[in-house]
């Protein structure tokens, strides 16, 4: 075998850990709920969307959920821009044509009442605004769901990138030690003293015209200042593992450095990493929310929780805005924290590993 892929067949130890995780009820239930939420946000277009699920018009079927827009003239309306399916539904009433709308028929970026004043409206189940609207008549539930998805994408990419940099550098520091370790440590110390918020403000001002503050740039900045934390843990874990016999054995057998680090040492430090993942997710979501709240986050009209929170705090006479965004944030962070606790307990090496 020339390459050792991470084994798909779980070893008994891992299986034991997973079993233990399932036994911790609070964490496991939180995990199931969060998976459910993630599943919902993945198919958000089907549940919450201004586009119809199915349109039956003049004997033809249309499925507008995904893909290109349908201009009004596709359905016999005198305009070129995207058809308003809610209006279409009322127009088709009493004819052979029909429209099937999603449960929440609003997009997160659309002004739902074109001919009425812009102001926050309380929840109204009859109009299917289950959580009300924000100050420019956008549906809050839609903004929450799509904002959640953005936060998840952000957190996912954030984890991959910070861990890639942090783990690699941390392992190298621990494995090589000596002047390399010292030098990189000093670099990290200097780097972590750069004030994060100022850099965000500066970058926001120099990002070239037309690009704007997109998810990618925001991610790059946050990652740039967040990878350092992981290096310390990986460095010490690698230091510890490096002294073990199996590492010496691999060295004697002539295994190259990268193979020793990534195939032998890394799998043995996995419990450290796994324990940190949920907390990193929580950190990523809250930092994106904080940046959006301060106005340095995603450009409008991107749905985001931070932006909703900001609207909520400046419209305290519309408590449904702040209530829904705040509750959503608390629920998700609590779920993630419960999972984190359970993972930490399940993967605690003191329970299963015996030191020789």
């Amino acid at each position, binding site marked *: 075998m020339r390459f050792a892929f991470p084994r798909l067949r779980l070893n008994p130890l891992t299986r034991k850990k997973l079993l233990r995780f399932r036994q911790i009820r609070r964490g496991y239930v939180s995990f199931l709920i969060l998976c459910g939420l993630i599943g919902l946000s993945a198919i958000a277009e089907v549940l919450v969307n201004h586009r119809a699920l199915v349109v039956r018009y003049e004997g033809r079927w249309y499925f507008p959920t995904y893909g290109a827009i349908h201009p009004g003239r596709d359905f016999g309306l005198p*305009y070129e821009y995207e058809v308003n399916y809610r209006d279409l539904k009322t127009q088709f009433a009493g004819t052979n044509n029909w429209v099937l709308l999603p449960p929440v028929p609003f997009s997160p970026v659309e002004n739902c009442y074109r001919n009425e004043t812009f*102001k926050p409206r309380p929840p109204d189940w009859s109009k299917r605004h289950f959580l009300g609207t924000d100050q420019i008549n956008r549906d809050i539930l839609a903004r929450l769901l799509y904002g959640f998805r953005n936060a998840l994408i952000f957190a996912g990419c954030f984890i991959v990138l910070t861990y890639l940099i942090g783990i690699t550098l941390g392992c190298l520091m621990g494995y090589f030690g000596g002047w390399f370790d*010292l030098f990189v440590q000093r670099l990290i110390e200097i780097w972590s003293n750069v004030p994060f918020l100022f850099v965000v403000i500066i970058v926001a001002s120099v990002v070239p015209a037309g690009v704007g503050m997109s998810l990618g740039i925001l991610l790059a900045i946050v990652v740039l200042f967040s990878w350092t934390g992981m290096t310390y843990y990986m460095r010490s874990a690698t230091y510890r593992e490096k002294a073990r016999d199996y590492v010496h054995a691999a060295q004697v057998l002539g295994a190259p450095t990268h193979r020793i680090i990534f195939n032998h040492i890394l799998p043995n430090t996995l419990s450290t990493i796994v324990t940190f993942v949920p907390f990193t997710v929580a950190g990523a979501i809250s930092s994106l929310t904080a940046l959006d709240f301060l106005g340095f986050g995603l*450009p*409008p009209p991107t749905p985001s929780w931070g932006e909703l929170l900001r609207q909520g705090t400046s419209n305290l006479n519309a408590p449904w805005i702040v209530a829904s965004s705040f509750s959503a944030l608390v629920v998700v962070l609590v779920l993630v924290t419960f999972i984190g606790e359970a993972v930490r307990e399940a993967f605690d090496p003191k329970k299963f590993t015996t030191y020789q």
Partner: protein
Amino acid sequence: MGAACALLLLAGCGPKAPGDQPAAAGAKTATLPDMEADLARTLTEQPGFYQQRPLSDLPAGLPWQDGSDLPEFADPAARKGGTFRYYIQDFPRTLRTIGPDATGGIRPYLLDYVSVYILHDHPNVAGRMIPGLAREWAVDDAARTVYYRLDPDARWSDGQPVTTDDIVFTFYLMRSPHLGEPWYNNFYSTRYERLTVYDRYTFALTAPQRRPGLDEQISQFAPYPRHAFKDFGPGWLERYQWRTLPTTGAYTLLDRDVDKGRSVTFTRLTDWWARDKRFFRGRFNPDKFRLDVIRDPDKAAEAFARGDLDMFPLSLPKFWYETISSEHPAVKSGMIVRTKFFNRIPRPDWGLWINSHKPGLDQKDVRLGIHYATNFDLVCAQFFRGDAVRLETRSDGYPFRVHPTLTYRRFDPERAREHFAKAGFTTQGADGALTNAAGARLSFTLTMGRPDLRDLLPILKQEALKAGLELRLEVLDSTTGWKKVQEKNHDITLVALARSVEPFPRYWEIYHGSNAYEDAYLDAAGKPVNKASEGTPNPKPGKVRVQTNNMTMTFVPELDRLIEAYDQAETMEEIKRIAVQIEEIIYDQASWVNGWALPFYRVGYARHVRWPQGFNVAKSRTADEFFLSWIDEDARRETEEARRSGKTFPAQELTFDPFAR
């Protein structure tokens, strides 16, 4: 080895050797600049600008006037006393009134609203002046000169008299390279040709060209106290950062009343020199004027409703219709009075400024399409709830209607698409944005430096897509946003220029080609010149001129010739005639989409705050600008009692519209 390396890296961070600091500080005090010496040198170096003449040279038979035929606007019944409590959003970053950071929210209370200018324009009578520091003045149009006699009673708050020494110093200060304010340097160098001093109280200012309303144009500035600027010079910005200076106004700031980060309290001078002068009596009434720092307007609104502030601006629809609505208990119980006042001032030119230098936007059909694709009608009706009206022209709100018939282009997606099609954008993409044959999307970035108006942008974006135009939104903080548009790096920006209350609009800054390109005009030798009359238009200008207000990058030689003629015009009739032509070309260029204006301001105030008969003056931009209100102490006690006992008063909602058009 590793430890040694670490030590090396950490070395440079330790404290400096003792003794460094005092030596440096000593050197600093030794080199404090000597303003008087520099001023004397400047006077000898610029004899053309600063002139000293004997009083006998003052022309005889000048038409002296003193504004005594004009009506007063304050209420003679106003009572002095009490504390007026208001708020500012940010603690000032400096107490200077010029230089970097000096244009913050406190400057009006340090300078603009309270200082006495040489002359003021009458806030209710267009084109007429009232005395300030000058007791009387005479305009000599032929000589482009205004003569002034300072009021011998005029005093700085430290008791020193205001004399022509201060006037000379003010011009020296404003034109000084040490000031750190190129805008002031330029303004005081180009708007004035000569300062002539006749004696301690008599002086004259000469403008470089004849203009209608000369006295209105050149007399409205506040002098600075010469005796308080002895160490003005290099490094003055730091030294004067927190210095409280003598003022000519009714309110002075004492060091002990600056509570850093929390509040600033102004104290009324009880023996103020102008206290009983016409146009000043009945104004500046509260003994104390206290500004609390409340960063969030929503919190300030709550504080106001609770009775911690005496006034709160309600112009924003949110505050008028929701936060402090007519249904609010404090309004219903008569504790708070809501007032709407129609004023008469040049309107800020809110609108989309299209950078016609950018590829795509240099096509007139694209710009016309953007006009029809921008739904400010909806913004006015729905976002501003019908309070705002769309601007008819670039120059609304001046004493005369600048163009008799021009108006804005209404939102019309069909017409927008026609124009976009003419520019080659014919195919509708999967997301609804148009593309041209080359595959380029009809997509531009809309930049805005006003985070408080950010909710307005998604509305424009959604409506623009109906015409196949994609707007990418970019909300920046105000400094960054302004920098970006001043460097002409924007595609489209939503911005407005604040306008002074003037008799006719300015066009040169905003529309002259030399403010778009450094090489807009070339002379015979091929060197860039700044005037159409001095050179020929450059067919391919390339050097963008940054830091100017030509943010549409308009360069039309015909327009520039008109603007130059407009700036040379000597009579009001001529100015009006050329303005019509200028506005027509601007309309035709279509690089500015007419935005909105509020024809009034609204304010809420505690019931014990009293105002003159008609509430305020035509030229007021905010309720407190002219300091016409006063505190009725009996009513205040009554209010406080009522708060405890739960007694209510009749609700009051007032509208004053004598100045509405």
